[in-house]
């Protein structure tokens, strides 16, 4: 008989987090807590110019006056901002590694475990990798090839040294230091991140990719990414994350700023797989991220594609400011919440210019006791003559203890603008599961297949090498969701 104890079965098939290991590398830690001295310490560690330190301090003083936002449909214990290390760097000699050979073999082994062998994979896939380990970039590949094309792809600290004029011009120009509680905190304490500059008319010759990884226990990670696409240029950027298993909540508050000038296009893809906490909801990453792109130029285009399967709490709204006439904003999202995960995610499309267009496709999947909220704003300002938006918002429920919520905000101040919003909610049916299992698929494979079908409209916007990984990830994330 197949009448096994259902809990036993669930235990057997519930997957454990595959990437839960900790690399044993000595870190250089700032003492816990946040004050002006810590900010000076970070700035000093990075050898920053005075203007940047001033900017950080300005942000910090502003942050002191702010309160944590509570409008998102997520709940978590209070965060003690004084109980966090704001700086951790893998120990190394005075100079950074010049090539992969100089990189700590343990670090490289960590990437191997994640399935990201920098050397092989980078070369095979033609992907340049700026690997961020904790807060300091440790290895950058393919720089030469990019240099030839005139593309700058470096850590943001390096960019501050080598291209201060660009950083100064654009940093905080899309997400100002005073923007919101977490973005302001990030402005004060960001330790590293990625900088990309694509010059006029250049099509970036390869997909740029950064793998983030939080390694040090109790280290909040504050990444800062800045991507600038000059007139007529194109760049595709991939961001993927995994984190080691930890029992304590870890705060992650990144800021990503994108700037697209006339006829430029930026494609930003994310696969986010940070530790979601265990089956009882203990631990897991708090992911409070501000991502925003400015379509400053005419006919410019910014496209966000995200597959969010990790984190205990996700609070994230990659947005587009459609300033240039005929500019285009896109948001394609898959968000999975299983066990006790909570996600409040969506986008903001701010239509300023004439004939601006935006497309939103959001697929939320809830399983276990997961809570999944789509929160999206479409704002048509008075100058947005002929602007259009289409929003498609679908939720899929697995089991009966999870929740799906849709909170669309629509503001239209121009009578010629058109906004469409469609939403559906469905459940994986027993009929579908049985059908697939009768054809030879395990219960897990059946769920993965059905979910991938549900997400197809988003997955097809991911670059090929990412799509395959993301499909597998969806399956892994939902392991244990059917008993």
């Amino acid at each position, binding site marked *: 008989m*197949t009448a096994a104890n259902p809990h036993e079965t669930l235990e057997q098939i519930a997957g454990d987090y595959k990437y839960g290991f900790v690399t044993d590398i000595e870190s250089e830690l700032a003492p816990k807590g946040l004050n002006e001295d810590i900010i000076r310490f970070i700035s000093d560690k990075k050898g920053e110019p005075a203007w940047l330190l001033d900017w950080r301090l300005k942000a910090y003083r502003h942050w002191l006056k702010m309160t944590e936002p509570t409008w998102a449909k997520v709940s978590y214990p209070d965060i003690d901002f004084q109980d966090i290390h704001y700086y951790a760097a893998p120990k190394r000699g005075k100079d950074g590694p010049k090539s992969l050979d100089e990189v700590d073999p343990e670090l490289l082994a960590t990437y191997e475990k994640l399935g990201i062998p920098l050397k092989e994979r980078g070369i095979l896939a033609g992907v340049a990798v700026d690997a961020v380990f904790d807060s300091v970039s440790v290895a950058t590949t393919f720089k030469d090839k990019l240099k030839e094309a005139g593309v700058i792809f470096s850590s943001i600290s390096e960019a501050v040294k080598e291209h201060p004029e660009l950083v100064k011009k654009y940093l905080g120009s899309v997400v100002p230091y005073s923007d919101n509680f977490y973005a302001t905190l990030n402005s004060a304490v960001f330790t590293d991140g990625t900088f990309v500059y694509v010059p006029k008319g250049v099509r970036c010759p390869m997909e740029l990719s950064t793998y983030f990884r939080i390694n040090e226990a109790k280290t909040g990670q504050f990444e800062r990414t800045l991507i600038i696409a000059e007139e007529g240029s194109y760049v595709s950027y991939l961001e993927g994350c995994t984190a080691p298993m930890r029992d304590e909540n870890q705060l992650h508050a990144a800021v990503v700023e994108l700037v697209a000038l006339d006829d430029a296009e930026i494609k930003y893809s994310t696969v986010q797989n940070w530790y979601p906490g265990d089956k009882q909801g203990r631990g897991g990453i708090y992911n409070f991220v501000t991502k925003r792109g400015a379509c400053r130029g005419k006919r410019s285009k910014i496209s966000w594609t995200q597959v969010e399967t990790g984190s205990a709490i996700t609070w994230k709204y990659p947005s587009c400011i459609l300033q240039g006439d005929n500019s285009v904003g896109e948001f394609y999202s898959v968000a999975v919440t299983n066990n006790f995960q909570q996600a409040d995610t969506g986008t903001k499309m701010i239509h300023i210019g004439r004939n601006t267009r935006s497309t939103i496709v959001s697929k939320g999947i809830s399983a276990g006791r997961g809570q999944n909220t789509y929160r999206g704003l479409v704002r048509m300002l008075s100058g947005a003559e002929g602007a259009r938006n289409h929003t498609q918002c679908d939720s899929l429920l697995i089991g009966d203890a999870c929740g799906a919520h849709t909170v669309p905000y629509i503001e239209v101040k121009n009578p010629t603008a058109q906004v469409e919003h469609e939403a559906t909610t469905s459940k994986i049916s027993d009929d579908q599961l049985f*059908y697939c299992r009768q054809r030879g698929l395990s219960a897990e494979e059946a769920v993965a297949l059905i979910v991938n079908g549900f997400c197809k409209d988003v997955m097809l916007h991911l670059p090929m090498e990412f799509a395959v990984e993301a499909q597998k990830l969806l399956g892994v994330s939902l392991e244990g969701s059917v008993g």
Partner: protein
Amino acid sequence: MTVMLEIKNLHTTVGGREILNGVNLTIRAGEVHAIMGPNGSGKSTLSYVLAGRDGYTPTQGSVTFQGRDLLALDPAERAAAGIFLGFQYPVEIPGISTMNFLRTALNAVRKARGEAELSAADFLKLVREKAKTLDMDPEMLKRSVNVGFSGGEKKRNEMLQMAMLQPRLAILDETDSGLDIDALKVVSHGINALRGPERSLLMITHYQRLLDYVVPDVVHVLAKGRIVKTGGKELALELEREGYAPYVGEAA
């Protein structure tokens, strides 16, 4: 002939109601059996029990398939062992192409049988060949599984899956329902193509019209959860003429 399937004294309760009430049935390799019976007699329940659907666990009795205890296997293991259920109402799976579904299913089953997965090229060749025999437009294979398919297309799709998976025992639940005469001929051709000394068929049907094209060796009447009469193909004709009334009365 070796025994393919042996059902002994099978009882099943669904939602608190006893639906199968002591079914006994033996199917030998190479045989084609038909189970006929009125609505509510337990025909579909029997097919679900054999395929291992959740909620259809027998309360009594045994089912042996090629010498193995079938009831100890989960649905996917049964599929790998060679059980195929052709559904009366095939479900839709949005976003997954029929081609992708077929390949996923075939490779899952091959893997479970210890066989190597088919290469993309070999798979394509095979699926095109099989689709052709079922008069299916290859374009249809690009569409999501059963989404927007007509009744006939869905049933052909079931037959295509059967042809790809090459089961040992195919249980076909009302495969003829919703088919026009041309589609019925094509589907029957697909079923007959699978007949062979190593394979058995169990056809569940209301009407005898499918049995004109797929001629059974044995016909059973299922009424009120038991097999109440067994005969040759002529029994189907008799049922067609006289209806199920005598059996319903008899079992009551």
